[in-house]
């Protein structure tokens, strides 16, 4: 575990350097979505890895800043000098926390509190929150923070809505053998849905025997624990809504970190039921949730939208094609649609397996994709191939397919090509992490080897033994190669060194008012 904590520290220092560089770049380009994304991702990784390796204080502190940057990312807060100043201070505080975990100087909790308070002031409506002291309590006042932390926005909204309706919140901890996992989960889900509303399902990594899967289901119901036990066959743990006692927490752990190595690319067609609005679900929020699982492109299909005279304002006519590259697996995708899957059409296909099987350089042609999806017949394709225009244009002109379908297929083609290209680049640039101490030791040893090699060459020349001379020349050649390679490994890109001065220049400029 110490080795992993050490690896986390190394990674966190790098992420903090990246965070600092990104923040300084963001100040020059405050509307650059890509840089905002980089800042968010750096903090998200520090938070996630920190929680995983027991740096709970770092995870909690970073979570707060990440929340603010989530609002920046969604366009609800704009990037200002004050925000950059505070985030740089927060970044410095995280670094101090990392240093402290290695026995360095203790952190200044008062300063941390001031940073957080100032950041929260930047959140729109924070004053109202203060004034509305009688308003709804934060979820963490009612439910164990470990549970709240793993909820998606949609799940959090559902949880809050049920609490507001005075529903009791329960959780069930279930273990199933791996082969029976799907059927066991479906069975318990069906039972829960008859008793109330299922809010979330999360896997648990603690105390799991080999060959079994453990997961926790959070649900809302107005029934008593005893009647639920009769219906579900297991006594649920009530975590809110007990008379006179709140917050009898259900202990849980964070979901196990995803250990998949490869990013898999999926093609998802999601066609919600027409009455999804009436059921209180906004399908765009589900798409937002899907976007958070990986690199995602969404194309709405609008061909089912009727003319105005037949249009029902409360019906959802749109359906979507989504191309998603994620490391989180198909179950994470299914989880997004868990509450609408019974009434919706959801088709998930793997279109790129992360490079395990494919050895193609590019990707399928547009016509092949459309035929594979069932959006186009082979005959229609052949009919229009006789002309010379681009295939997408020809198909639209021929009226055999809607523009949205072509756009979706083109996006799939581009997306998978990009993913494969990135993978090739990553493979060619693959690197390993080695501590600088070990490299220094290698350089020292090579230095000594060069000295010894030099002595060997001199001795061989003195003794004038042809065989010894030949060996000495061979050793000299190998030593020179080893020396050059080692020196090239130990050299640092000069940009890393100079980028540190950007922050110094900024701080000095601020202090001098220039």
């Amino acid at each position: 575990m110490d080795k992993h904590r050490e690896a986390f520290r190394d990674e966190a220092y790098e992420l903090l350097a990246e965070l600092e560089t990104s923040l300084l770049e963001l100040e020059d380009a405050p509307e650059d979505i890509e840089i905002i994304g980089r800042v968010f991702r750096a903090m998200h990784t520090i938070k996630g890895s920190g929680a995983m390796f027991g740096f709970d204080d770092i995870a909690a502190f970073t979570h707060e800043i990440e929340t603010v940057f989530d609002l920046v990312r969604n366009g609800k807060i704009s990037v200002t000098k004050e925000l950059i100043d505070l985030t740089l201070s927060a970044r410095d505080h995280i670094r101090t926390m990392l240093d402290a975990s290695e026995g360095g100087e203790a952190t200044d909790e008062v300063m941390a509190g001031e940073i957080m308070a100032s950041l929260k002031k930047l959140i729109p409506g924070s004053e109202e929150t203060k004034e509305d002291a009688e308003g709804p309590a934060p979820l963490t006042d009612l439910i164990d923070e470990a549970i709240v932390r793993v909820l998606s926005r949609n799940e959090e909204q559902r949880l809050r809505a049920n609490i507001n309706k005075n529903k009791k919140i329960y959780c069930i901890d279930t273990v199933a053998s791996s082969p029976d996992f799907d059927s066991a989960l479906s069975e318990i889900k069906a039972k829960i849905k008859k008793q109330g509303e299922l809010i979330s399902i999360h896997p648990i990594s603690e105390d799991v025997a080999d060959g079994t899967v453990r997961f926790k289901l959070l649900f809302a119901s107005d029934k008593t624990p005893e009647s639920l036990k009769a219906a579900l066959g297991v006594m649920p743990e009530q975590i809110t809504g007990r008379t006179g006692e709140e917050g009898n927490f259900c202990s849980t752990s964070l979901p196990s970190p995803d250990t998949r190595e490869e990013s898999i690319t999926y093609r998802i067609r999601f066609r919600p039921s027409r009455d999804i609005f009436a059921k209180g679900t906004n399908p765009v929020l589900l798409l937002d949730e899907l976007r958070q699982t990986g690199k995602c492109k969404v194309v709405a299909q609008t061909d089912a939208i009727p003319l105005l005279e037949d249009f029902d304002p409360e019906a959802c006519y749109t359906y979507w094609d989504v191309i998603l590259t994620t490391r989180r697996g198909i179950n994470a995708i299914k989880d997004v649609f868990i509450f609408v899957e019974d009434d919706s059409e959801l088709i998930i296909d793997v279109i790129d397996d992360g490079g395990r099987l494919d050895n193609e350089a590019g990707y399928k042609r547009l016509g092949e994709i459309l035929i594979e999806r069932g959006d186009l017949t082979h005959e229609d394709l052949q009919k229009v191939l006789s002309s010379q225009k681009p295939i997408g244009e020809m198909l639209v002109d021929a009226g055999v397919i809607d523009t949205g379908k072509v756009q979706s297929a083109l996006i799939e083609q581009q997306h998978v090509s990009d993913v494969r290209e990135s993978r090739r680049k990553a493979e060619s640039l693959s690197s390993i992490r080695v501590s600088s101490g070990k490299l220094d030791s290698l350089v020292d040893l090579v230095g000594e080897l060069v000295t010894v090699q030099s002595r060997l060459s001199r001795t061989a020349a003195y003794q004038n033994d042809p065989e010894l001379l030949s060996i000495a020349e061979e050793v000299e050649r190998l030593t020179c190669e080893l020396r050059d390679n080692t020196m090239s490994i130990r050299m640092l890109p000069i940009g890393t060194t100079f980028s540190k001065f950007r922050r110094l220049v900024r701080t000095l400029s601020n202090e001098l008012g220039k």
Partner: protein
Amino acid sequence: MELQVEQSGDIERLTFAGELTVQHSDKLRVSLMRTLDSVNHVFIDLENVTSVDLSCLQLLCSACHSSQKLNKLLTITDKRPEIFKKAIEDAGYSRHVGCASTINKSCLWIENGN
């Protein structure tokens, strides 16, 4: 939702302000149907709209199809608020090319591509 109507000859300009959401989509539908019946060119001004949801994006798409069927022109003015652009992006409505059935393959979902 607030609606202001200005007619000049065969052109009508519908200026919307406030929330363009499912609660108001029937009123929006009725306004669009009435306007498409009475003039040949409809301008929709969304500059002062504060919120747009999927229901209204669908409705505008439906209005565009209806205008094509009636051989009329429906255009959203160039001053599109950020909130409207974001709603288009979030719902996956952005398009690079318009429908084949529309005049010059125009489309409401291509920016400046009316």
